[in-house]
């Protein structure tokens, strides 16, 4: 099942205002890996995720997912394989009930209503949110919104999950629940986050980004105790590791 691998080579992206957000970025991620993408604000994490799903198109370099080069032509195909959740769940939940929202993707791929229903129920079950099925989005808590937005991605049965700050603005209990859910997924995952405790919990591997490029790439356990590196990238040790020596 090596076709879920992600290869990014020498990627550049500059915004129209001249800001170079991604600068010579290269990584290699294999099937089933769970990778944390960390770095200060403005390090280029969100831009990188947007590039990986073709919301933005790189000026230079290439992205290969499985054996497919990402390009305008292959986008529809690749987007089926990649599920992504946004920083702000409200941007992603644009329908007036949870069910309709989760059903949006499957319906676009022209599945029949029975299959759509099965997908919706299945996806909601995976994130423990089946009971929210008929709720309007404004009646969801932050944690529930997050769970549902993950379900909207899962309903397309993706191989790869990209998440932008999934634990931001969650209360401790919702955060804990979300971590539990994430740990159960067998998908290849890339999680952009400032929540280093969560990264430690969920991801074996961590990539540290600074000014659009990779400054460190290794086992989460090792990176999270490298104080010099963390300090340089405006990061801090996870709470759980604070006060410990290497």
């Amino acid at each position, binding site marked *: 099942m090596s076709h879920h691998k992600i290869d990014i080579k020498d990627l550049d992206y500059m915004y129209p205002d001249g800001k170079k957000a991604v600068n010579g970025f290269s990584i290699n991620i294999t099937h089933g890996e769970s990778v944390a993408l960390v770095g200060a604000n403005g390090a280029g994490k969100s831009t990188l995720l947007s590039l990986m799903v073709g919301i933005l198109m790189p000026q230079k370099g290439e992205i290969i997912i499985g054996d497919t080069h990402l390009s305008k032509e292959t986008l529809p195909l690749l*987007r089926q394989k990649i599920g992504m959740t946004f920083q702000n769940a409200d*941007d992603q939940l*644009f329908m007036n009930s949870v069910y309709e929202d989760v*059903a949006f993707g499957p319906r*676009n791929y022209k599945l029949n209503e029975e299959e759509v229903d099965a997908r919706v129920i299945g996806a909601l079950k995976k994130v423990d949110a089946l009971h929210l099925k008929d709720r*309007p989005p*404004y009646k969801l808590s932050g944690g529930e919104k997050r769970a549902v937005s993950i379900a909207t991605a899962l309903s397309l049965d993706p191989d790869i999950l990209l998440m932008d700050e999934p634990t931001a603005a969650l209360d401790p209990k919702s955060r804990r629940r979300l971590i539990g859910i994430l740990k159960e997924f067998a998908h290849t995952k890339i999680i952009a986050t400032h929540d280093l405790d969560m990264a430690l919990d969920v991801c074996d591997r961590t990539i540290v980004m600074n000014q659009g490029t990779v400054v460190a790439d290794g086992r989460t356990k090792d990176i999270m105790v490298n104080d010099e590196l963390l300090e340089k990238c405006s990061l801090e040790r996870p709470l759980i590791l604070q006060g410990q020596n290497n």
Partner: protein
Amino acid sequence: MSNITGALYKIRYLDEFSRKKTLMHRLSPTIKLIVTLIYILLVVSFGKYQLGGVIAMSAYPLIMLSLAEMPAKELIKRVVVAMPFVMGVGIFNPVFDRDIMTYFLGIGISGGWISFLTLIVKGVLTVSSAIILVGTTGIENIAHSMRILKMPKIFVVLILLTYRYISVLMEEAASIWTAYKLRAPGQKGIRHDVWGPLLGQLLLRTYDRGIRVYDAMILRGFDGDFRMGTAFVTGIGSYLFLLIALAGFLIIRLSVITMILDLLI
């Protein structure tokens, strides 16, 4: 601020109410929509002095309220807000139309007062029936019905999207308003030199949000064609409702009860 939260409450109350499961809620949205439109047309079709007729037409919302288990208080709250314009324009009727038309308990009543009252009752009834429609049907079902009635799809989609983000944007507007008030105590509104920045910032954020929403859509396979779920199944009960409602309207509109009354007297 209270303005915004009040509006939010109003919209959410109806939205939540529309998710109830009473007999009325389970009827076909399309049929409810059609019945409501016919009802409104019939109410306004009464002449300006036909006070009795419009009073009789109140039968429909009154019965619907009970069937839908909707608290009259919630209805009245909304109706009251809608009345000022109608009253403002209607109040000239008694001024200009002073011919005594009838006597009640020996007091002469002018045509103007009768047409004024007729206007008010009409206002209350048309507004009530529309609110009862939303309260028993919900925006999603109304949108589906609009599709069935061949309204342009893009318009229907637009309504759903607008509706979805009203909640989100009203909350944003409320927090901007609060933030402003905290630093500008005692002001009734936004000062003119911050008109542009304040609303403009919100607008820019909204613009970017629109783009992110689009991104979220294409990531899930959106290709410009908005696909909605299957239509509502119209059961025998809905047809029965249509029949009874129309029969009731006709009986009232053709003043059958008044005729009987006249024949008896």
